[in-house]
């Protein structure tokens, strides 16, 4: 398979690291080797949490500017912030529910207009998918499944050579029993939303 660089970004606590590790686990089930990089410690205290999933035999865990093939953002401001990591042919997948950082209240730059900026993204990127993952997660039964909704969207694009069945098997293995059903539904809702 060709090298594929996927960047996940979001806010600490949204489950970005879990999402990237679920994706890599599903790849492993299919005998495809994935590597991930994660951030821990200070970087996680309510700050931006980025992780990468690299497929296709890549050894480098990091994505440089303009290298990402797919961006999956759990939060619209963080999507905008990470755009410089993507090349023009990249696919941008973003949640549209904002989490306003405390710096806005303290007089920093204002929170950007989500709709307007997503329209701008469409003019410079090949493929932009904007979705209310929070709503779909609620519909699935748990707001904490935003990450799995977005994994559904990601596989729904058909750009990642990992089958939905492998992902569902991974969810069954890795998610706590009482949340499996909601997460499977979250995955389905995301998958069919594309």
């Amino acid at each position, binding site marked *: 398979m060709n090298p594929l660089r996927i960047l996940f970004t979001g806010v600490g606590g949204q489950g970005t690291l879990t999402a990237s590790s679920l994706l890599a*686990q599903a790849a492993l089930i299919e005998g495809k080797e*994935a590597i991930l990089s*994660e951030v821990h*410690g200070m970087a996680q*205290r309510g700050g931006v949490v980025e992780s990468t999933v690299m497929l296709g035999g890549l*050894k*480098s865990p990091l994505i440089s500017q303009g290298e990402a093939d797919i961006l999956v953002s759990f939060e619209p*401001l963080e999507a905008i912030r990470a755009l410089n990591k993507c090349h023009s042919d990249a696919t941008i997948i973003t949640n549209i529910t904002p989490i306003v950082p405390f*710096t806005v209240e303290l007089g920093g730059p204002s929170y*950007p207009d989500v709709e307007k900026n997503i329209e701008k993204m469409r003019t410079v990127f090949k493929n932009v998918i904007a979705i209310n993952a929070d709503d779909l997660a609620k519909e699935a039964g748990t707001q904490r499944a935003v990450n799995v909704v977005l994994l559904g969207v990601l596989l729904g694009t058909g750009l990642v050579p990992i089958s939905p069945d492998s992902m569902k098997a991974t969810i069954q293995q890795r998610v706590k029993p009482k949340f499996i059903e909601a997460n499977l539904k979250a995955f389905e809702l995301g998958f069919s939303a594309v």
Partner: protein
Amino acid sequence: MHPLLQDNPGHKMLLLGNEAIVRGAIEAGLKVGSTYPGTPSSEIGNNLFLASQDENAGFYFEFSTNEKVAMEVAASASAAGLRSLVCMKHVGLNVASDALMTLSYIATKGGMVIVTADDPSMHSSQNEQDNRIFAKFANLPMLEPRSPQEAKDMTIEAFELSERLELPVILRTTTRTAHVRGPVTFGELSKDTASIGKFEKDPRRWVPVPAVARVRHKVLLERMDIASSLCEESRFNHVIGNGKLGIVSSGVASNYVADCIMELGLEDKVRFLNLGFTFPHPRKTIINFLNSVEKVLVVEELEPFIEDAIKCIMVEEGIQKEIFGKASSHFSRCYEFDPKMVKKAILDVLELDEPDQKTLPDLSWVPELPMRPPSLCKGCPHRETYNAVKEALKAIGKEEITIYPTDIGCYTLGLLPPINMADYLICMGSSVGSSCGFSVATEQKIVSFIGDSTFFHSGISPLVNAVHNGHKFCLVILDNSTTAMTGHQPNPGIQLKPQGFDNPTVPIEDVVRGCGVKTVKKINPYKKNEAVEILKEVLQKDELSVVISESPVCLVFKKS
């Protein structure tokens, strides 16, 4: 059963570099492990701790009070013939370095592995020192993994090497090897179940009075000569490709080199010396390599450790080749690398343009974005303590003239607005020591902050100094009953104990009084009015005082 204890050779699992080190240690028959937690090494200790709670684990593990203590625990276990591992973040090795520098003389019996996790770019650290220099400084062998699989394999190799040489072996990772997750194939578990060692007395070996140390220094040099020859044959050093440009690399940077060669098809232009056993330097391997290429690019993060060694070898051997790297400004001594940076340098030295570059989008329309820095969690008791101290100082009219020395932990985030109560910081425990200095150097009011775990780590000795030398300041101990920043590890003062963990606690108040502090008060930061009244009373006095602000970390409640 803890997943890293499973006896299933051939099983493939996605592991963090840190988890792979733990699996490697378990496969190698670890008997004693110790640490003081610090990112990016924390998951090693966390997993060893959890695994050691399993009755079939077969090894002892402890969170020691600081890195020096942890080093001494692992060293003496090794002297008693047991395999031991100690892990810490890069600055932790500074704390442990007093032990390290002489441990290399008295050395080891059972295999001993010292893991140091460096943090280029300072994702969670106060500096980005290059701990490879410690290997040279202490004169000890060093291995540097490039992937989780190698982290596991090298840990096992490090134990074997350590026993063969009777020297501790340094395993050096960086954030991007410690926190990378990748597939790791499990190997056989050690069949050695004996967990009791025996210390054989030999004062001429283990007690480095000058007469002994003089002999032991020579022994160390002889051992390192043997290490040099082992390094030449190491399976972790290898050459691939057949071009005129030689590239030498190690650690995570070698992955960027490998991907660049693969993606741009440079196999016939580049000859790549990939180093994993990086100290002692593989001298013969490097000489042969230099003789097989026309020019050399050295790709290594932080200091020019390999680059300088190569230049030294060239002078001694009379080899003349162009060397590119740090000195030629192809790379910076600051911050971690990324794949593009490495690609650019390789293409520059090859005098090639980048083939079919992917087009970059026009992003000139992106507005100025609000930052999202890390911050104290909502409901964090530290916030309340900071607010109470500020209010008390305001009430007694001292807010304007107060300096706030701070320390290492979540509460360092008190630096940020709107709190703005972190004025000076060097390292673990410096809040107390620097308050002593400010108290003699200024007439300002001094209120310093330290966490419970950091207090036990290195706050006690400077507090004794403050009592003895009559320094005047108020030390606020933020006691949230855990080591929050690195993932809630226990410390000697904890009230909230992990399940199955019943070690005795050491109350902070007893320690503080035992140090000789006369004014010691406790506050509950959530009972604000009461707290402010107590603080006002304490802060009005011009004397040494300690206020212990007790409230468990909010994340503990969130997690349960």
